[in-house]
């Protein structure tokens, strides 16, 4: 049904998560991200990861696009781990504690249970962060994002920059496309088979000059339009796109408060117990 779903949605969707307010979405996301950053405990990370996968399924994303990005992220992550291992094969000793050798390639290159465990936790943690970001980005509209940021006391002028940027990015992209085409018609070669990377890079910069000039014209008009309708008149602002709390929002408030609680707990436990090693190991 939502196969035409884009990565950035301008129109709000229809699923449970979509229908939450921007405030709930931003606050929940923030709680989860903070929690994920704070913890290295797989007993917490793994359940969260599965929860996020369920959330992702629930918003019925465009799987083709999701897999494309997901595949890329998985590859980058694995590559990252490989590099870490190449530089420091016994990394687990410092963060997990101990070094149980499973396989020895040479004196330096060993595969230890602790390092593998660390890599597994790290990978899960990154993937969880990625999945929840994906859910967040796909379920929030730029206007809700602005309202949500405003609800966590970000000044509204900064919030508006977010929504304005999303409003005009497609326009600027279209301008860029037009300028590019008109330059191609005049003989600019942008075909990778016919021109070298450097030439193409240089030529793309030629296109930027008119793009910047047209964009400046537009910025002037936008600024006037905003002034004329009283933007910046008051210290506070309300949002048309931010509907009143629904039952879902009330439930989610309990949920995100729970996560903030968990986050605090994780941090406090860390401070109090001062564990020798960062990563929990069975």
């Amino acid at each position: 049904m939502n196969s035409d779903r884009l990565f950035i949605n301008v129109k709000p969707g229809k699923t449970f998560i979509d229908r939450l307010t921007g405030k709930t979405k931003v606050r929940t996301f923030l709680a989860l991200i903070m929690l994920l950053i704070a913890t290295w405990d797989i007993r917490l990370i793994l359940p969260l990861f599965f929860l996020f996968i369920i959330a992702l399924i629930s918003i019925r994303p465009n799987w083709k696009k999701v897999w494309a990005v997901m595949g890329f992220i998985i590859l980058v992550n694995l590559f990252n781990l490989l590099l870490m291992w190449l530089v420091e094969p016994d990394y687990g000793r410092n963060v997990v504690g101990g070094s149980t050798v499973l396989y020895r390639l040479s004196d330096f290159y060993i595969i230890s249970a602790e390092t593998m465990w660390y890599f597994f936790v790290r990978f899960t943690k990154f993937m969880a962060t990625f999945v929840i970001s994906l859910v967040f980005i796909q379920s929030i509209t730029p206007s809700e994002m602005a309202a949500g940021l405003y609800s966590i006391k970000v000044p509204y002028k900064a919030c508006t920059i977010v929504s304005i940027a999303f409003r005009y990015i497609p326009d600027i992209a279209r301008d860029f496309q037009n300028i590019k085409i008109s330059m191609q018609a005049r003989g600019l070669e942008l075909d990778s088979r016919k021109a070298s990377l450097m030439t193409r890079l240089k030529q793309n910069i030629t296109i930027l000059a008119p793009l910047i000039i047209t964009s400046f014209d537009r910025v002037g008009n936008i600024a006037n339009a905003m002034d004329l309708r009283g933007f910046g008149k008051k210290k506070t602002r309300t949002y048309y796109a931010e509907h009143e709390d629904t039952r879902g929002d009330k439930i989610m408030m309990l949920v995100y408060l729970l996560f903030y609680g968990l986050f605090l707990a994780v941090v406090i436990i860390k401070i109090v117990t001062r564990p020798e090693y960062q990563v929990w190991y069975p």
Partner: protein
Amino acid sequence: MSEPIIVFEDFSFKYKSQTTETLKNINLVIHRGEKILILGPSGSGKSTIGNCINGLIPFSYEGKITGSLTVAGIRTTEANIFTLSRHVGTVQQDSDAQFIALSTGEDIAFSLENEAMPRPEMLPRVEAAARTVGMENFLGEVPYDLSGGQKQKVALAGVLHNDEEILLFDEPLAALDPAMGMTSVDLIDRIYREQNKTVIIIEHRLEDVLYRHVDRVILVSDGQIALDTTPDELLRADILSKMGIREPLYLSALKNAGVTFGKEDHLADLQALNIDAYKEKLTSHFKENAASLSEVTVSEEELLNVQDVSFRYGEEDVLKNISFKVHKGERICIIGKNGAGKSTMAKLLCGIEKPRTGSITFRGENCLNYSIRDLGRLIGYVMQNPNQMLVKDMIRDEVSLAMQLNGYSEEEIEKNVETVLRMCDLYSMRNWPIGVLSYGQKKRVTIASILSLRPEILIVDEPTAGQDYRHYTEIMRFLENLNKEYGIAILFITHDMHLAIEYTDRAMVFTDGELIADDYVFRVLSNPEIIKRANLKQTSLVTLAEKAGIDPEQFIHAFIEEERRIRDDEQ
């Protein structure tokens, strides 16, 4: 007369960046409940007057003000833009850039959001405003899916709920197709009547605005008020063409016939104008002209042949079985409402998109596999906004760029660039920086830069958008000259019916992806069915001809020829 609401007293204004005053000693009183047209060519200062009224001057544009301006009892130098915006609602010219929000509802709500109005109060007001302009079913739409006219309606709704007494429209017709423009003028008039507002329209398209009654016209020229009078008086004054304003076509036709008007004639409203007394003169003049009508001759030399071309974006058919030919030296206008397929057709001709079926040949050679670059040497495409095309600092460099990119030798470039610069009357300016040029001059440079590759066909997208009559004439005469002297075929993509009538011979009309008409301009424009289907506006010439009992098609034909004769004599 009711109380004054806007009072200019000995008002002058000089922009910080300029050396001379843009407005000089303006004295003007506008009363509550009036409907005013501020008329003037580009650069006359008419938009500056608007910006003074809504407070952008001095809030956003710095400069020196002398004299005084009072709006709704507030002296503008002592108030800020927010106080003024409670009294003056402004609808700007660029309906796209002023659509700030990501949905219709949100954009209408923008000023209420800034008032920090609680959402429950906001919703009914947004809906009421949307209903006033007829956009209540589009509240969730995103700007990318709306037409220019719809965006303008949203902009209007956005300034309706703060009880602004004054509505200011800055060139509301600039970006709309003819029928949409009429709807817009109608809507402004309806809101004026229903809501007892003071309405100020800033425009140079006189005939289109006069489609609905206005109380008073302020003619601005060179920063001063040249005339402040009723529309009838203005039209009688015979001052318009001197001021660079197009007079209504029906008046031109009557004047060509030697008619002089009396004091009682309602010149501003063709419907109300009693032409019985002038019928005879008009008919005999028409007969005289009609006797000598020449056939439009078309060269046999075929350049472009489009056969059964279809194109679709995703599931949607954008073009259906289009076939036409273009011959050497033809002047064709491509007309139709937004989204009818005109721009897609142009994209296909330039190789930006490839048709799904059908063939396109240039001088008999299949050019479907040509790249954009290859086609650029055969068919030149001039974009609407010259700022999107200019990449160099100097005129000469800009014009030689295309040849350099195509690998011509220095000598060839030297020779050809000189020819092109002379063709475009830019030779004496060849070492000027582009930054100092006017819009029209920039347009000429872009055309020169395209011509340097010597294409045989030019596609010109909205050559006159946002131009007043004087600049419009300048650009069009230039293009006409290129066509006549060098035999370059020109395809104009346009909304402008005046352009079609004055400067083209053949019209291709697109509607919903179909080419519904391809015929002589006078035949197309006198065909009511095509006019209606293509969202065009019936020209006042048809109405006039019908009132006088003359066949509209022939009347338009005769009028076009006569106008061209007059124009040629002037040159």
